[in-house]
């Protein structure tokens, strides 16, 4: 991993260039506006035009907010490639990019920093190399790995985070981590210098959305969790007994047949051999039931829950996100408040609205979460509620002010607290005693529960 910081240096440009026929980002930054950031509904800072300059890009200005700031790009996929390009073209040289994935051939229709020869290589590394080569003023540092493997101090070092993730769990983790970085003073107010804006984009087909999250100030990703419902799966009885659609046969093959045939081996969704096996089994079952429509392409779609993706939508959403980053850093115009969506399949529908904070958000609110349960309900049942209810936690651990109810880790502590799982919660805590929940999904955030027994 290359971790060297370099101050942006620009090779002197050829001076044979004709006189400019139109303005640039520098023109905007050097002229006062009646629409400066402080005049907007989500004011972050006061716009002060910079001195007139002979530079061409903001990277030419060593003191500008854009050349000074450090940006993290999360994800180097369809959105990430666009975001990196947009940052380069906005004169923001100090960029880190993190992604776990390797390049697949199906990325090439939109992830335009990759070529056929790059298939199999790290997305983050190839994307960073491409940008650094194409735009010599850029210094993109690649991190090939999981976002969860970086500790909070890594995230703390950035001025803005632009995220182009394709899954809800990673976005929740990032959101909770960055919200957890905010220092709250004694009055309960956040310390502005510890707030790192997250600009989050997402797309599906011809639709997409961009949003600005100012942790603890605006709504956060967790506040809007219900807008991202968990994936619906087919009822097991349909798959096993009354298959009707090709998807049911495919689900039968990979959910029921695969583990039976290969109890030791996890299905590799990227292996053509494994996928062919699933396809053939599905086809066999479909024939048996006279069901039409099992194809290899459809099999992949069902097994990998493939979301259709095109270059154009990624371009819209990414540029909207980086546009917000530019405004947040320079104050040269107002800030998106807070959520923009774009739908392009039936004409164009585009809508912007304030996504309200959820008053008892598990991540960005300090309010106690209230849960009702029966006097007999066990700790295990409470864990089920936390996992399957609207909180959608992963592996909750629970303590009270004076005792440990259940810990998922380390193994010794898990073993020691396991006996509590079958006990009624009402027997474990005092009346009105709050339970503090921690969970990998919530990161450093502690969630307070108030249980009322009926």
């Amino acid at each position, binding site marked *: 991993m290359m971790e060297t910081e370099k101050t942006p240096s620009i090779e002197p440009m050829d001076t044979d*260039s004709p006189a400019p026929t139109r*303005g640039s980002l520098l*023109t905007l930054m050097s002229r006062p506006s009646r629409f400066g950031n402080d005049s907007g509904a989500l004011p972050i800072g006061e716009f002060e035009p910079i001195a007139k300059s002979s530079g061409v890009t903001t990277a030419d200005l060593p003191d500008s907010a854009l050349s000074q700031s450090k940006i993290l790009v999360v994800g180097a996929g369809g959105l990430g490639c666009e975001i990196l390009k947009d940052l380069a073209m906005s004169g923001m040289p100090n960029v880190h990019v993190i992604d776990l994935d390797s390049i697949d051939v*199906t990325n090439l229709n939109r992830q335009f920093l990759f070529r056929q020869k790059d298939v199999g290589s790290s997305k983050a590394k190839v994307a960073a190399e491409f940008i650094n080569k194409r735009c010599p003023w850029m210094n993109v540092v690649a991190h090939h790995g999981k976002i969860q493997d970086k500790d909070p101090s890594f995230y703390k070092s950035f001025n803005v985070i632009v995220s182009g993730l394709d899954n809800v769990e990673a976005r929740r983790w990032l959101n909770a981590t960055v919200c957890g970085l905010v220092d709250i003073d004694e009055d309960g107010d956040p310390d502005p210098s510890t707030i790192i804006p997250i600009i989050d984009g997402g797309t599906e087909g011809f639709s997409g959305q961009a949003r600005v999250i100012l942790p603890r100030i605006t709504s956060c990703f967790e506040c809007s969790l219900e807008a991202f419902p968990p994936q619906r799966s087919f009822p097991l009885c349909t798959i096993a007994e009354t298959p009707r659609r090709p998807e049911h046969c495919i689900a039968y093959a990979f959910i029921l047949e695969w583990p039976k045939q290969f109890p030791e081996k996890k299905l590799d969704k990227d292996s053509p051999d494994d996928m062919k096996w699933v396809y053939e089994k599905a086809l066999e079952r479909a024939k048996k039931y006279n069901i039409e429509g099992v194809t290899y392409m459809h099999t992949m779609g069902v097994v990998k829950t493939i979301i259709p993706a095109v*270059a154009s939508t990624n371009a819209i959403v990414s540029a909207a996100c980086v546009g917000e980053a530019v405004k947040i850093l320079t104050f040269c115009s107002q800030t998106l408040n807070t959520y923009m969506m774009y739908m392009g*399949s039936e004409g*164009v529908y585009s809508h912007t609205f304030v996504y309200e904070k959820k008053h008892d958000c598990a991540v960005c609110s300090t309010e106690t979460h209230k849960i009702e349960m029966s006097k007999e309900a066990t700790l295990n049942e409470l864990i089920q509620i936390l996992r399957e209810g609207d909180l959608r936690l992963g592996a909750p651990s629970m303590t009270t002010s004076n005792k440990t109810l259940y810990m998922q880790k380390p193994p010794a502590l898990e073993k020691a607290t396991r006996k509590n799982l079958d006990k009624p919660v009402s027997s474990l805590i005092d009346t009105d005693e709050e339970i503090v929940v921690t969970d990998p999904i919530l990161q450093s955030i502690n969630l307070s529960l108030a249980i009322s027994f009926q």
Partner: protein
Amino acid sequence: MATNDKYDRQLRLWGAKGQRALGDTCVVLIGGTAAGTETLKNLVLPGIGSFCVIDDVLVSKEDVASNFFVTSTCQEEPTIGKKARAQVACENLQELNPDVLGAFQNVPKLQDIKDWKEILYKETNSRQKLLVIASDLDPLVLETLSAQCSSLQLPLVMVQSYGLMGCVKLQLSGKVPLLDPKPANAPPDLRLKKSFPALDEFVQSIGDLSKLESHEHGHVPYPIVLRKAIEAWRASHGGQDPKTFPEKNEFKDSIKNMSRDIHKEVNFEEAIQHAYLAYTEREVFLPEDLVGGDDSSMLAKLFQALDTFREKHDGRLPLNGAIPDMTASTNHYVKLQSIYKTQAEQDLQEMKDLCQDLPEDAIQSFCANVFSVTQMSTRSLVEELTSQPDEETMDDLKMSLMDPYEVEAHTPLLWYLGLRACHAFFKKQGRYPGMKDDESWEADAPLLEEEYKAVALHYGLADEGLVKSNQGDICHELTRYANAELHNVASVVGGVASQEAVKIITGQYIPLNNTYLFNGIVGVGGLYKF
């Protein structure tokens, strides 16, 4: 990787048919600015057949700073002030996708082109369809191009980035049929009211539901449940369907009563949810100008055939043939599926016999989407600028100002008028407002405001309070921009423009009708038909 097809993720949107259409298209880009190269990037990646970039300037250092596809070196040679922007853009775009053929034309001066036909067709072959993209062209060039695309019947996508404002405008080639609009929430096409014999027979063959054993009872497909329920209703209501709101509720209750346990029998729950399908039949209104007149367009012929079909089948229309998933036993579902499919195939054959000279693809799409097929046309930019909008359009524009955005000054229409005013300013001054050296740039703002007032008058909006109270601030802000190229705005509108291009080329989904304005101050967008 489990597939070798790099187009897999987009084929799931527009299918092999759409992909073929892309491959048969040549996209001509005029103006190699960031908005234009971004639009083209999003078309080269998914695999259009070929493209041609037409431009009249050399690469500048400003281009290199804000246009990803205009680089300071090209094939190891410096470009700034030396190489044509058209050539550099072409080479960098071509490199994105080896399946796509790239070409460029560096012309002396776009403004001097009086006849576009030869230039537009120069790099295409006879099999190809043409789509033209105009990027950030100055008003004189753009108006000539708009008029000529209109008479050449070529679709034109106009894209513009202007400071924090972006605009995409479509000018379609005449009346364009939309045979595959893919509406998001179309009800299932089950024809329970205007039925057909094979379905009637199947309903009969199921017999009395109350005699079925319990597993079977819970797996009767809901269309059958609805048919049984409506037959019972008609028998006890003098052959009438439920009409009033209380009657419709009563009908739902009757379905509930047929169930043995509504909490367990999902098929009955589905039947209640779709109860309206038992007594309503969707209608198609044949557009009068298409059926009655002497229109010989493809869509007119299709509608005429539909008229004949409908008369012959006692008001029934060709069937789509696809049914949604529903709770059912495998046997019943597969049987039902084949009944609908067989009928749809028969209907399609009949329609093919009725319009033998039309392409099979079109007839198939028409039959599959008979309830949502429509056509679209736009006014050309030249028409928009030279004649005032008709009364209906003017009313729509006024309406959109009655419902302003949260902050009135953000309302995109107000900024659209501003962009038109900047074009008017250019026509008089030969430059955009705010281009003077930095101390005196603000002096252009009042001049621009005069143009703004004239533009507002043209669109019938001069007396609107919202216009009057904001025009000063808007003109000041637009003067501040000096037509700045901001990459992010260019990339947003480039994304929008390429989505629209894909919709036009593939003939799928519904294109924008006809102008989108992106206000990058706060990221709001507006749609207007001019």
